[in-house]
């Protein structure tokens, strides 16, 4: 999915592709049985949570049978994780996320964004990150990593890793250096990728962030941008579509893609056994959005002693962690409940640890475990790889 311009009227045709069959509620696969499609519909049980519901709301707005209201605006944030599971299971592949974003854009245009979202929005405006924290952390990370601002390969840490998981950045940069790559980092010139602006329905502000980042990346001279956060990865790949002059001149790869390649080429060797049974959680923005399913698994398979088991719902069918791009901010409790369902699946699969390659997923899972007082080891994929380095 590429969002060139979010506009409800332009999505009318997309909405008319929905035949209201309800496959966005439930799906069945041979050997797998039936399973729910929408984590939030499973929790709340009203149709407005389903993809079909979003289409019916969109059409009613366009046809003048419904008006945008404060309660609808709030519901648009409460009722969708933007996890794309409904689209992945729709016989007509109706692009529900684009419809939701167009509806949110309509809400934003009328000044009806929920307070929680406005706080994050304001943080990004003022501090270029959703947490509202100062840029000194970017400077600090730059200093810790000790990387130049120019080079062939640019490491794009993203806000979550910079502000919450700097150790991930350190581990990943170490891996890249081990492979002999000349890695650069933008430091304070790295701004929020814009995913939150995009998913809260503010495409023009998203574009401004994109323009800044593209200029900064071009100035770095990088040919390859390595993003570790799946949200950043998806968004950086979107830049070339939304910017008039394009974002050409550099390639965007996800860290797991590059790592898999480096391992395959023997440029990184994993020698220390990690004796654990783990399962891999597919982040929505990496899986259903970008169809990167096999590289992370291949990386895990390279770790000696590690045993990978699959959860019942994996790859295209994976259950969202509950984070969503903005949902975690707006409806924390629901996010935690969705995450706990996923952690139960990991336990059912016989895993001692759940591994993911998304800092937001990791955050939601950590909070879910804390809330439930449950135990499950959690790892960022690169952390495990680093443990195995010779």
């Amino acid at each position, binding site marked *: 999915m590429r969002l060139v311009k979010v506009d409800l009227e332009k999505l009318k045709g997309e909405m008319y592709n929905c035949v209201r069959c*309800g*496959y966005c509620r439930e799906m*069945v696969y041979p050997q797998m049985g039936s399973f729910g499609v929408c984590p939030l519909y499973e929790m709340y*049980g009203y149709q407005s949570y389903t993809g079909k519901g979003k289409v019916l709301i969109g059409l009613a707005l366009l046809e003048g049978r419904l008006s945008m209201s404060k309660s609808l605006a709030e519901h648009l944030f409460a009722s969708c994780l933007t996890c794309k599971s409904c689209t992945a299971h729709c016989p007509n592949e109706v692009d529900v996320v684009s419809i939701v974003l167009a509806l949110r854009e309509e809400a934003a245009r009328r000044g009806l964004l929920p307070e929680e979202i406005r706080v994050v929005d304001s943080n990004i405006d003022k501090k270029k990150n959703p947490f509202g924290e100062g840029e000194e952390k970017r400077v600090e990370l730059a200093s810790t990593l000790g990387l130049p601002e120019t080079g062939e390969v640019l490491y794009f840490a993203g806000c979550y890793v910079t502000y919450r998981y700097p150790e991930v950045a350190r581990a990943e940069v170490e891996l890249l250096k081990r492979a002999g790559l000349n890695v650069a980092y933008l430091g304070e010139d790295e701004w929020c990728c814009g995913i939150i602006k995009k998913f809260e329905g503010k495409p023009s502000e998203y574009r401004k962030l994109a323009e800044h980042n593209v200029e900064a990346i071009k100035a770095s001279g990088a040919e390859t941008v390595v993003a570790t956060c799946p949200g950043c990865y998806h968004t950086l790949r979107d830049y070339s579509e939304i910017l008039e002059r394009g974002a050409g001149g550099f390639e965007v790869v996800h860290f797991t893609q590059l790592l898999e390649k480096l391992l395959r080429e023997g440029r990184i060797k994993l020698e220390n056994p990690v004796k654990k049974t783990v399962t891999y959680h597919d982040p929505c923005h990496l899986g259903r959005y970008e169809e990167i399913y096999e590289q992370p698994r291949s990386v895990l398979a390279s770790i000696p002693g590690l045993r990978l088991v699959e959860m019942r719902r994996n790859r295209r069918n994976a259950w969202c962690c509950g984070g969503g791009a903005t949902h975690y901010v707006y409806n924390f409790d629901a996010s935690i409940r969705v995450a706990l369902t996923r952690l139960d699946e990991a336990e059912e699969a016989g895993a001692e640890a759940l591994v993911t390659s998304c800092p937001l997923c990791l955050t939601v899972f950590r909070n879910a475990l804390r809330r439930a007082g449950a135990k499950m080891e959690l790892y960022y994929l690169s952390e495990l790889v680093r443990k195995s380095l010779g």
Partner: protein
Amino acid sequence: MEELISLLKDVVGAGNVSVEDFEKVCYSRGANADLPQEPLAIVRPRSKEDIVEIVRLANRFRVPIMVYGGGSNVVGAFSRGCIVLEQSGIPKKIEVDEESFTVTVSSNVTWTQLESELNRKGWMAAPLCNGGISATIGGGVALCNNGVRSARFGLIGDQVVGLEVILPTAEIIRTGSGAYPGAGNFVRYAWGPDLTGLFIGSHGLFGVITEVTLKIYELPEESMYLGYDFDDIHKLTRVMHGILRKRLSALEWMLAIAGGFPVTEETTFVLMMRLLGAKEEVEYARRVVEEISLKEGRVSGILPVVKNTRDLVEWSGPNTRIFGENMMLMPLCSCTPAPRFPKLAEVYGRVVGELNLDRYDIIPTLTAFGCDNVIVASPTLYYNQSKSFSWAKALEASRRIVEELADKVGFAPHYVGRTKTSYRPFQKLGAYYELVKRIKKLLDPNNIMNPGQLFIPAY
């Protein structure tokens, strides 16, 4: 109505009642062509006791009730200003009785959930509703659908052993052997007349179906897909009829597709089927099917398009994008004896031609499912949802096709709902129609259950 809403909240809790405009929009239509009908409120009962209280309130305030299952109905079951009973809040129950080879299941369970659970235990139900993956047990029984396994087991109603129903008067009844306290649900014909049948295909007019007991069958291990093509509808029909005549125990489903419609000399036909049974049964059925198809002049054996149940459910309905952008389906399916299929194709083709449907962005298709002793022929119109002229013409064509097929072929439509109530064949039912109407008045004096379904005008 504020008092009613307040009382509904007292019954089920405030979080289980929604009067939000955006929620009403989501419950205004199913997979049907009717204009949206917005409800008064959406209520999520948590138990049968909640439903009983809601039914009492509906009577007191004279507000209709519509039960919402999967929302995939194609006949316009929605009533303006009604209370929608959204069943997602009721705990789901699937109880297998290995003594009597039955399963008692709550009506909000979907057919696919039931199949998954039964398969896990080595059983299967039959048939699986063709209302799609989200179709619920209650919806399938209320409309008496056909579906996967109909070739062997007939319509859904043929497999129902008993029901639990909350009547419009708020009494709870069990039909069949379940009516005897403590006996259990194992046989449909127990004391007195078969009242189970009153609720099957009733379009929800006589009460809220809360539980259904169905026959179940051991899940056989052997399966096989067969597929053939034909250059002539008569040859295809003779093969379908010949296979149905053998009443093969391993014939799970059989689907015929016209490759292009209206039928011309260029049209080819595909016949696909799945055999499911013990090894010997499957082998016997394969031999019989091969012999009949060869004798009647199949062109070749081909690989079937459909390779599993999910494909079949999906293929046979909602993936309309294969016909173009914005296409919506309007199925007009009904049972008819197999030998009438060529005549049906001829009449349907003539009407399609006379109405110049191609000028209205409407694509007609024709398929047929084997269904026990007959076929379910499915003339289907794919119209463009984004164009009002296409939608209006499809509705006009629907009436004309159903009326002409009933008059000239002997077509017995049973998905009537709200959409087709005024069509001519249903106005000719005479004393039978009046009897059903009298029963409705007797059971539902305030006309709270799905008014406007089947009868026109609503009393």
